[in-house]
C-alpha cells in the first residue's frame, strides 16, 4: 500500500518472542494456543503477503465441521462445498501467526522499530489549550510536540505519535490510559485449552454442546488437535489438576457418550423439512460421526475466564482500539481473532484514505470512520455468539427440542446453511437476512 508506506511505525510489545530471531522448527512441540482463521482473514493475510509465511509452518485447513449436542436430538454437518468455498477455515498456532506477521513486516520496506517494552503512561497536550489569540502571529513558535500523544515506556524511553493503536488485548493498557469506557459481563465460564494427539490425522472441526458449555476439537495438522472446552470455574480447576490420563479420558468421554447419547440421523428426519420445500443439502445425507479418539496430551492445560466486553467507543483524538482491546467475544466459534484482523485491515484502509486527502491521521473525524465501519460488524457477531451461549446455558426439555429443531433446520435447509457458513467465514452478513 504505497499511501501508508511513508509512515513511521513503532511496535511496543514486551513479548520476548518478538525480539528473538528464533525460527519455529518443524519438530517443535505444538503450541497450546491456536486461532481458527476464516477465509476472509486468509485473503487479508494474502493481500499483505503474510500468508506465505504461515504456509511454511504447521497449519491445517478444514472443509468439514460437525456440531451436535449432548441431548442426542440433533446434529449439523457443514461442508465448505455447500457455500461454494474450498475451506471453512484454517487452524494456525498463535506462535505461527505471530512469527508470520513479524516476518512480513521485517521483509517490507517501511520504517519500523520494535520496542521490547511496556506502555506505562500516555499523555496528550491538548492543542486547543495551547492555541490562544494572544499569541504571536509570526513564526516564533517553534515546532512543539503539541499535536502528538506522548508515550512513556517501562524502560524509561518515551516517544511521540500522531496515532496510538491499542492492539494490546482484552486488558488493554491503551484503553485504560485513554479512558475508554466499556460494557460487558462475565459468563462465569472458563475455557480450558490444550493440544492433544490422535493416532491418525484429524481433518474436521468438531464442536459438541455440553450442559456447561461447548467443547471443540480443532485439527492442527500432524495428528494434533486443539481442545477448547468451556466449563464452569470449579470444573476447570479440577480439569487442570487431574492426571493427564484422567484428563484425556474426560476429553474422549465429552466428545463421545458423555452427558448423553449420540444423535440419531433420522429422529426428526429430513422429512420434516422436505415439506417446507427447502432443498435438502448434500451434506444432509452425511451421517453423524464420532470424532477421532485422543490418545495423548502434548501441551500444558491453560484456563481462561470468559467474558464479553465491548468498548463504547473505538476512537478518540490520537487513539484507536482494535481487536480484543475493543471487543472480546465468547470463543465458541473462534471468531475473536478474525474480528480483530478485520479491525486492523479496516483501520489501515481508513488511514490510507485519510493520507490520500492529506488528513492528520490522529484526527478524530478520520478515526471515527473506522469505528463506523467496524462497530456494526463486531456487535452483530457478538450478539450471535452471546445468543448461542445463552441458548445453551439452560437445560430444559422443551428448549432442548427447540435447539434440536434449529440444528435440523441448519442441517437441512440449504440457503440458511449457506448463509451460516458465509457469516462464519467473515462475510459480513447475518445468517437470517441474506
Amino acid at each position: 500500500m504505497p499511501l501508508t508506506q511513508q509512515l513511521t511505525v513503532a511496535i511496543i510489545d514486551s513479548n520476548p518472542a518478538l525480539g528473538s530471531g528464533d525460527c519455529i522448527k518443524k519438530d517443535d512441540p505444538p503450541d497450546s494456543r491456536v486461532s481458527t482463521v476464516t477465509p476472509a482473514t486468509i485473503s487479508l493475510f494474502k493481500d499483505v503477503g503474510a500468508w506465505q509465511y504461515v504456509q511454511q509452518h504447521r497449519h491445517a485447513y478444514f472443509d468439514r465441521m460437525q456440531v451436535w449436542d449432548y441431548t442426542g436430538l440433533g446434529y449439523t454437518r457443514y461442508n465448505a462445498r455447500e457455500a461454494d468455498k474450498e475451506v471453512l477455515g484454517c487452524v494456525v498456532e498463535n506462535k505461527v501467526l505471530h512469527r508470520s506477521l513479524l516476518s512480513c513486516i521485517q521483509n517490507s520496506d517501511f520504517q519500523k522499530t520494535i520496542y521490547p517494552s511496556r506502555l506505562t503512561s500516555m499523555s496528550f497536550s491538548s492543542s486547543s489549550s495551547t492555541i490562544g489569540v494572544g499569541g504571536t502571529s509570526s513564526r516564533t513558535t517553534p515546532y512543539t510536540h503539541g499535536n502528538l500523544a506522548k508515550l512513556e515506556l517501562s524502560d524509561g524511553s518515551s516517544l511521540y505519535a500522531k496515532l496510538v493503536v491499542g492492539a494490546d488485548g482484552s486488558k488493554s493498557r491503551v484503553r485504560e490510559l485513554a479512558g475508554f469506557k466499556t460494557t460487558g459481563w462475565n459468563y462465569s465460564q472458563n475455557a480450558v485449552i490444550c493440544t492433544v494427539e490422535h493416532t491418525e490425522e484429524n481433518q474436521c472441526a468438531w464442536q459438541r454442546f455440553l450442559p456447561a458449555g461447548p467443547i471443540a476439537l480443532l485439527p492442527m495438522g500432524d495428528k494434533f488437535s486443539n481442545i477448547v472446552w468451556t466449563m464452569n470455574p470449579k470444573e476447570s480447576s479440577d480439569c487442570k489438576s487431574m492426571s493427564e490420563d484422567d484428563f484425556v479420558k474426560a476429553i474422549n468421554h465429552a466428545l463421545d457418550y458423555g452427558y448423553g447419547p449420540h444423535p440419531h440421523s433420522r429422529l426428526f428426519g429430513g422429512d420434516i423439512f422436505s415439506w417446507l420445500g427447502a432443498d435438502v443439502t448434500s451434506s444432509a445425507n452425511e451421517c453423524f460421526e464420532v470424532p477421532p479418539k485422543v490418545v495423548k496430551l502434548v501441551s500444558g492445560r491453560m484456563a481462561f475466564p470468559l467474558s464479553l466486553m465491548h468498548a463504547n467507543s473505538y476512537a478518540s483524538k490520537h487513539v484507536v482500539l482494535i481487536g480484543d482491546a475493543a471487543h472480546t467475544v465468547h470463543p465458541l466459534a473462534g471468531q475473536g481473532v478474525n474480528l480483530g484482523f478485520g479491525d486492523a485491515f479496516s483501520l489501515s484502509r481508513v488511514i490510507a484514505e485519510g493520507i490520500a486527502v492529506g488528513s492528520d491521521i490522529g484526527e478524530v473525524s478520520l478515526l471515527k470512520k473506522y469505528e463506523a465501519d467496524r462497530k456494526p460488524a463486531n456487535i452483530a457477531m457478538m450478539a450471535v455468539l452471546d445468543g448461542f451461549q445463552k441458548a445453551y446455558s439452560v437445560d430444559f426439555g422443551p428448549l432442548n427440542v427447540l435447539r434440536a429443531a434449529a440444528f435440523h433446520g441448519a442441517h437441512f435447509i440449504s440457503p440458511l446453511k449457506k448463509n451460516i457458513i458465509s457469516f462464519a467465514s467473515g462475510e459480513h452478513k447475518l445468517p437470517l437476512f441474506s
Partner: protein
Amino acid sequence: MASKLLNHLRALYTTNNHSPSHRLSNPKLIFHLPRSFLSVSQSLLHARPYSDAPEPIPTGPPLPEKPPTNGGTTSYKKNVSRASNFSSSLNEAELSKFSAIAETWWDAEGPFKPLHLMNPTRLAFIRSTLCRHFRKDPHCARPFEGLRIVDVGCGGGILSEPLARMGAIVMGIDAVEKNIKIARLHADLDPVTSAIEYHCTTAEKLVEEQREFDAVIALEVIEHVADPAEFCKSLAALTVTSGATVISTINRSVRSYATAIIAAEYLLHWLPKGTHQWSSFLIPEELVLILQRASVTVQEMAGFEYNPLTGRWTLSDNVSVNFIAFGTKNHQ
C-alpha cells in the same frame, strides 16, 4: 429549481456538444464543461438574468458589461468605510463575523464542524483534478510535491494543512488577522505543516505584489466577498498561465436556502446564524461566466451531497447546494 436547472444545463450540454473531445466522461461524478458552455450559459443567463433573484443582491453590483479598467480596486461594497488596509473585494461585516468565531476553527465539533466534515470530500476533488491537470501520480502520498498553491481565505488552515501534507508548497492568506494567528499556531504543531506560509492579506494585495501560483484555491470564500467578479479576476491574476483555479461555494437555489441557511444555521445550529447571505450566493452558470471573463475556463464541476444517515459528504453531479469548480488559466 436547481435540479431543473441542472437538467436544463445537461440538455443544453448534450445538444451543444459539438466537440467530441469534451465527452461526458464520468457523468456520475463530475461533468466536464464544453468550450461551448460559455455561450450556452450566456443564453441561459439571458433567460434568467443575474439580477432575477428574489431579492436584489445587496453586496455585489450587477455583473459589469465589460471589465473595469483599473482592474481590482474599483467596485466595492458601499459600506466599506472603516479604516481598512485592504482595498479589496472584502466585505467588512463578513470579516467581523469570522473574527468572532476564529478560535473554534480546529474544534471538529465546533462552529466549523460542517467544514471539517466536508474537507476530505473537497480535497478528493482537488486531488483528482490537480493530479490529472499537472500529471501527478495520484497513488502516492505526496502527489503535490513541488506545486505552489495559495489557499485564499484559509481561515484556520483546515485546507492549507492537508495540502501541505500532500506535498504542496502552500501559502495561506486570510483577511482576518485572528484566523492567521490560529492557523500559524496550529500549523506549527506539526513539522510537515509548519512550512506553510501564512499571511494576513488579500488576493488583491498579492496581485499587486505580482505573486503567481501553480494553483489558486478559494473554497467557501466567494459567497462572503463583496464583489465576486473582482475576486475572480484577482484569483485569475494569481494563477500562472495553464495553472489551476479551484473555487467552491453554495448555489443560490431553493434547496440551498433550505439546507444551508434554514437547516444548517437555524435547525441544526451547525453554523452561527447569519453566516450566509443567501442572496449573495452564485449559481454555477454565473461562476463559470465570471471566471471565463477573468480568462479562467472551468473544466470540471461537481456537487457535494450530504448523507444525514452516515454524516458524510460525497461528490455527486448534483450542484444544487454546494459545488466546486476546477478551471485552467487561458493562454493570453
